């Protein structure tokens, strides 16, 4: 199906299912219940989950396949975002040209950075990419303020020229759209106590993510993918087998840069603003964490990792003392206070602490990331059925 093996097609189908039914899956708790705090089925977070999924999928094409650890990928996301917002300011609020140009510009920028950085390998390569990204961030925040908006970033204004769009009716703020379909258009479905939100922007982002995921499967299974894994495995042998590893790694670098640009463009399409912080080194570090947390070199790992971290950032950070008090209100007074005191350091403003601990846990106990965790659980079930697995699994990257 679609030129994929049965297994890969199955994987794609699972991801498609998750994307389509995310509004249900992420909103498992009825409105107003104490657990509703954990619902993530609102447009902004759903959009972020898939967009950062794209970012991580792209990063994985570079890091997972070739092993080159870039510490500057956020720069490509940022450059893509700036390109997109300028398209929206100058040309049209339609997201198509914005996203197209963001991919293009990020691709060109990554070509330049990659061409220089790939002269070195190992940590030297990492530091070179980091240096480029930090320079981009520092300049965007300060001297490039006329182009980037600096500290305040850029947002579309109704006074922008926008040569393809007609003048806005009075009182309207410019809205990102796809040939007239507003990114914020939302439909709600009420089923008893449950409310499910369907958002146009989310589905466009999700469709893009599916396409990006599909392309990444194609790349993984292609001769190019094999060559990239060969780069990671043994560059020496590669060079002595008549293969030039440079253009291969550069291709991977540019492809992943374009994925980052796509993510950046989509971020702007969903939420029309850019800030320089999205190029800061911690943002580059975040995509590394997403990829490794999910499982580097696996197809679905980066998507899981991205989802996991963004969920933490957006949900756990919003649990404040009041919410905790409400959760534990059913307990006797002293006990409820004690529970609040125990849990409080880990949620709300302490969410970074939880994140740090989780990283450590995953790296220590699940070196292959969440995917390995899933596989272990899977094996647990399979061994109950006592069906011996063929040792085939190792030759292709695990899902």
């Amino acid at each position: 199906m679609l030129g994929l093996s049965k297994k890969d097609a199955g994987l794609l189908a699972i991801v498609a299912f998750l994307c389509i039914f995310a509004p249900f899956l992420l909103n498992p708790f009825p409105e107003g219940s104490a657990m509703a705090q954990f619902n993530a089925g609102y447009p902004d977070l759903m959009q972020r989950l898939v967009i950062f999924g794209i970012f991580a999928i792209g990063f994985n094409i570079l890091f997972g396949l070739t092993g080159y650890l870039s510490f500057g990928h956020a720069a490509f996301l940022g450059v893509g975002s700036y390109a997109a917002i300028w398209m929206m300011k100058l040309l049209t609020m339609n997201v198509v040209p914005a996203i197209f140009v963001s991919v293009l510009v990020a691709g060109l920028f990554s070509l330049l950075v990659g061409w220089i950085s790939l002269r070195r390998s190992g940590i030297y390569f990492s530091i070179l990419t980091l240096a480029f990204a930090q320079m981009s961030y520092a300049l965007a925040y300060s001297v490039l303020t006329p182009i980037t908006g600096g500290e305040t970033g850029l947002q579309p204004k109704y006074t922008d020229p926008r040569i393809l769009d007609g003048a806005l009716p009075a009182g309207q703020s410019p809205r990102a759209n796809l040939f007239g379909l507003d990114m914020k258009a939302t439909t709600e479905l009420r089923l008893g106590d449950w409310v499910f939100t369907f958002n146009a922007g989310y589905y466009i982002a999700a469709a893009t993510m599916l396409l990006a995921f599909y392309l990444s499967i194609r790349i993984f299974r292609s001769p190019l993918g094999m060559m990239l894994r060969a780069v990671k495995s043994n560059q020496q042998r590669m060079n002595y087998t008549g293969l030039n590893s440079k253009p291969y790694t550069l291709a991977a670098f540019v492809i992943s840069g374009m994925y980052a640009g796509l993510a950046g463009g989509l971020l702007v399409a969903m939420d029309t603003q850019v800030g320089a912080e999205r190029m800061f080194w911690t943002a580059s570090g975040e995509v590394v964490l997403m990829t490794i947390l999910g499982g580097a070199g696996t197809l679905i790992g980066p998507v899981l990792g991205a989802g996991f971290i963004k969920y933490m950032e957006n949900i756990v950070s919003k649990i404040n003392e009041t919410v905790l008090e409400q959760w534990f209100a059913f307990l006797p007074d002293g006990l409820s206070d004690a529970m609040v005191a125990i849990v409080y350091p880990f949620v709300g403003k302490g969410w970074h602490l939880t994140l740090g601990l989780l990283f450590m846990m995953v790296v220590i106990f699940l070196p292959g990331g969440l995917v390995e965790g899933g596989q272990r659980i899977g094996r647990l079930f399979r061994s109950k059925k006592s069906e011996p697995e063929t040792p085939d699994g190792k030759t292709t990257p695990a899902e």
Partner: protein
Amino acid sequence: MGILEVKNVGKRFGGLQALGNVNLSIAENSVHAIIGPNGAGKSTLLNVLVGKLIPDTGSVMFDGQSVLGRKPYEINQMGISRVFQTPEIFGDLSVQENMMIPCFAKRDGAFAMNGYGSITSQQDMIDKAEEMLVNMKLADKRHMHAAAMSRGDKRRLEIAMCLAQDPRLLLLDEPTAGMARADTNNTIDLLKQIKEERDITIAIIEHDMHVVFSLAERITVLAQGTPLVEDTPDKIKGHPKVREAYLGESQDAA
């Protein structure tokens, strides 16, 4: 005129003259061994031949074309394949994939942006890899992780990968170093078989005299960066200078 002509090659590392003034001619379709004590410059010479090092002086011609200044992959594409002392294979990939990579390199050249079609749709490449695997008795291991194989199998795989490119010159760098006697003999047999089956020139750098004298048609003895003598194995065995410089001390080791 041999297929490989090395003329007046010299290479200096700081104060050390690694290669003095090397002249070497390897005839097409011959098996040529290069021997010499440690530090004689064998590895340096090999690295010059494959493009890893650029000599200070002299020229290296392969089939009438200079190899100097070319990158290793370009030299490989000219038809020179190298087998390493410790097998260099793609340990993270399956044996089958290891086998397919040189097939692709042969067909598509040094770089091809082949990122969309699936490998499984490249039936000709799969067939060619399979043929080599069967030939090398590795077919039953095709789905194995290459790193998980025994050392002897890795060596066979590496040689098979080099042969898959149909090289005109195969360079072997101590192919039996650290092997048990049985594995060494297997390797000798394998190389003999290869030589019988195809038109190929083999240059071999070796410590093990047993291997050298079983295979080589001509032998060059290197000492202190310069060729001492070059002759047939029988002549080399009796050569006094060689005994003095090399064999006397290494017979115990061999």
